[in-house]
């Protein structure tokens, strides 16, 4: 079986990843991790009017989070800082992996803190 973490995710994060800090309620303080900034343009349409903004997001590796004591239940409302901005995790997508979802990625769906 191919080890997707070793052969895919780790090299990709080594190239595209940026350092981040995450503070999750109920855990022991701040952890350091590597994320891939996935902030995208986002257009919301209401009554025919388009409003342009961004949909902030970030990918992280679930094994790295787990190894640092961050369980899935801790994701929501965690504060995450990378690339000069701090966001709150409003939700997340588990991205899965051929090695199992616990060895895949999570995409944090973020929101501005204020």
């Amino acid at each position: 079986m191919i080890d997707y973490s070793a052969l895919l995710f780790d090299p990709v994060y080594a190239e595209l990843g940026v350092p981040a800090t995450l503070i999750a309620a109920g855990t022991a303080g701040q952890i350091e991790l590597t994320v891939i900034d996935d902030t995208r343009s986002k257009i919301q349409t209401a009554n025919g009017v388009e409003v342009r903004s961004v949909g902030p997001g970030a990918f992280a590796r679930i094994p790295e989070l787990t190894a640092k004591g961050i369980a899935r239940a801790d994701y929501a409302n965690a504060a995450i800082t990378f690339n000069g901005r701090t966001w709150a995790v409003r939700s997340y997508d588990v991205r899965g992996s051929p090695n199992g979802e616990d060895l895949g990625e999570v995409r944090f769906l973020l929101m501005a803190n204020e």
Partner: protein
Amino acid sequence: MIDVRENILARLVAIVGTMPSIKQVFRNYVDLTEDQLPAAAVLDGDEDTDDVADKSMRPPERPTLTTMTPEIVIFKLAPQVGPDISMLRRELIKLVLYDTELNEQIVKTGRYGNGAIRYLGCQTDLGWERSMFGALKLNFHFKYALRPADL
């Protein structure tokens, strides 16, 4: 030239522009960016008469009662957008329904002053952008006289 429809729409833009919590007001503009919010857009409404049912021999250039249903949409980004757009709704309904110029100078244009302003209701729209996105569309109904000779 007196175009009551245009006067009403221009006045709505001016009214919304007096709201301190609205940063920018647009008319029939459909491409906004987040830094322009909180914003409002006045969208020209449909115009109708009841003349399709008029079986009389009334000359075509005689005045007729007309209705228009413009829309005002409010946009806001905020973590708790619900209370914010509710507050804007309250402000806007009062401003439109109590506006002296709309009531006395524009709408009551019929021979008997038989124009009217009605608030019909609102619809909300929600989504996520950098923060929670909320839109609120308010529907108004204006009745006024259309005088072809004035156009």
